[in-house]
């Protein structure tokens, strides 16, 4: 395979690509139906526009939410298990230091952050992807408390019981949306990362090509 395309390198393994796109679908359904569920009893002085929601009414939204949760959890478990077991997380997301994250974020804001070799994540990316994984875990755990406040009441103690878990779930959703927005903006700024998420391969970066 690589012999046929000598100028490309493997960037994303198949497991990462497939779980990424399954997660896109699952998170889209979870967020859109979640907004409809939120609207039935809003925590704050606003509701989500109905056209942005999924399910039509509360029961429909709940059906979507509790169906897609299996997709999200299954895909998430495959991704995290693979990430830990294969060393993918260790190789791609570590090491990470606050100083490096700060340096790369400020560089990115000045438009000076390079992402030439798609195989290597800069510190800002590492922080973003690690955060997304942690946020997803918080979403699943707070979701469990909301779904089964009695059966998972021990877990609920860590997030202020049922009512506290509603806020945890909401803010974790907001954090995930923020991640998605930044993530998509970054893809738009470095468009050649997009096909890589489908094919798994990228051109050999200029620096590496010479050697």
């Amino acid at each position: 395979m690589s012999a046929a395309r000598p100028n490309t390198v493997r960037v994303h393994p198949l497991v990462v690509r497939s779980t990424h796109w399954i997660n896109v679908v699952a998170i889209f359904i979870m967020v859109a139906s979640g907004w409809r569920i939120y609207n039935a009893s809003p925590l704050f002085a606003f509701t989500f526009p109905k056209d942005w929601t999924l399910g039509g009414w509360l029961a429909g939204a709940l059906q979507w939410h509790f169906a897609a949760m299996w997709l999200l959890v299954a895909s998430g478990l495959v991704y995290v298990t693979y990430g830990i077991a294969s060393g993918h997380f260790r190789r791609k997301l570590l090491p990470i230091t606050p100083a490096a994250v700060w340096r790369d974020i400020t560089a990115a804001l000045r438009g000076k952050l390079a992402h030439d070799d798609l195989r290597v994540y800069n510190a800002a990316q590492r922080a973003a992807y690690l955060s997304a994984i942690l946020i997803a875990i918080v979403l699943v755990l707070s979701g469990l408390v909301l779904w089964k406040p009695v059966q998972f009441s021990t877990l609920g103690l860590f997030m202020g019981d049922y009512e506290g878990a509603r806020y945890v779930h909401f803010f974790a959703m907001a954090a995930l949306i923020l991640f998605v927005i930044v993530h998509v903006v970054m893809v738009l700024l470095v468009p050649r990362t997009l096909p890589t998420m489908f094919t798994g391969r990228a051109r050999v970066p200029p620096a590496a090509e010479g050697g």
Partner: protein
Amino acid sequence: MTKRLSGMQGSLKGHSRPQIEKIERRLFLRQGLSLGALALLSGCSVTDAEALQKVLWTMSRWNDRVQAWIFDSDRLAPEFPESAITMPFPFNAYYRMDKVPAVDAASYKLELGGLVREKRSWTLPELYALKPQVSQVTRHICVEGWSAIGKWSGVRFSDFLKRVGADLTAKYVGFRCADKYYTSIDMPTALHSQTLLAFRFADQILPAPFGFPMKLRMPTKLGFKNPKHIVAIFVTNEYPGGYWEDQGYNWFSGS
């Protein structure tokens, strides 16, 4: 059918919602799937929408089984001090407060049916005389998301079921109510120690809006699963469904 459609107005919480909600539910397929259809099916036909609907219902039945498996008969819902009680406690039903049924205490009779040995009906004084009477201060969680803490008193439903010789190996217990509401629960939840046949709310005879003369109080299930104004209880192995459950709310709806 006309009866049911007309009964579909109003939210579970009982706050008056615009009539549009009623129409909305009838347009469940078309409107409900609009965003999903656009995004996932890109111009799906009605058949696709129906197929999708079937998948969602199948997943809901799967979730019933998962919840029955997760349900731990020995795990108790958290109880709270009386100082934590929510005042005023929200009224909730599928109709507005002015439609609350007026049940006559003197002529009231609780009918029993299905897989029950003693099918004789019960009067209110007989029910009130049942022993032991217990109380609980627990959180009522609505399917809409809000919750409120209240105090209910009555007899353990498991004691009552044993007393009337119900088949405790049967799958379901069904309820019919004076307000035409109906629902059903699984036997393990019916036998849970915090499942009460409640006659009192906040130490008073159950007020009409909260289900006079009796309500099945289950802190291990969402609010809509707790029937009020119960007039008939039956034990069965045939799935009885429920008012909201038949419209798409998850049947088990355990907490």
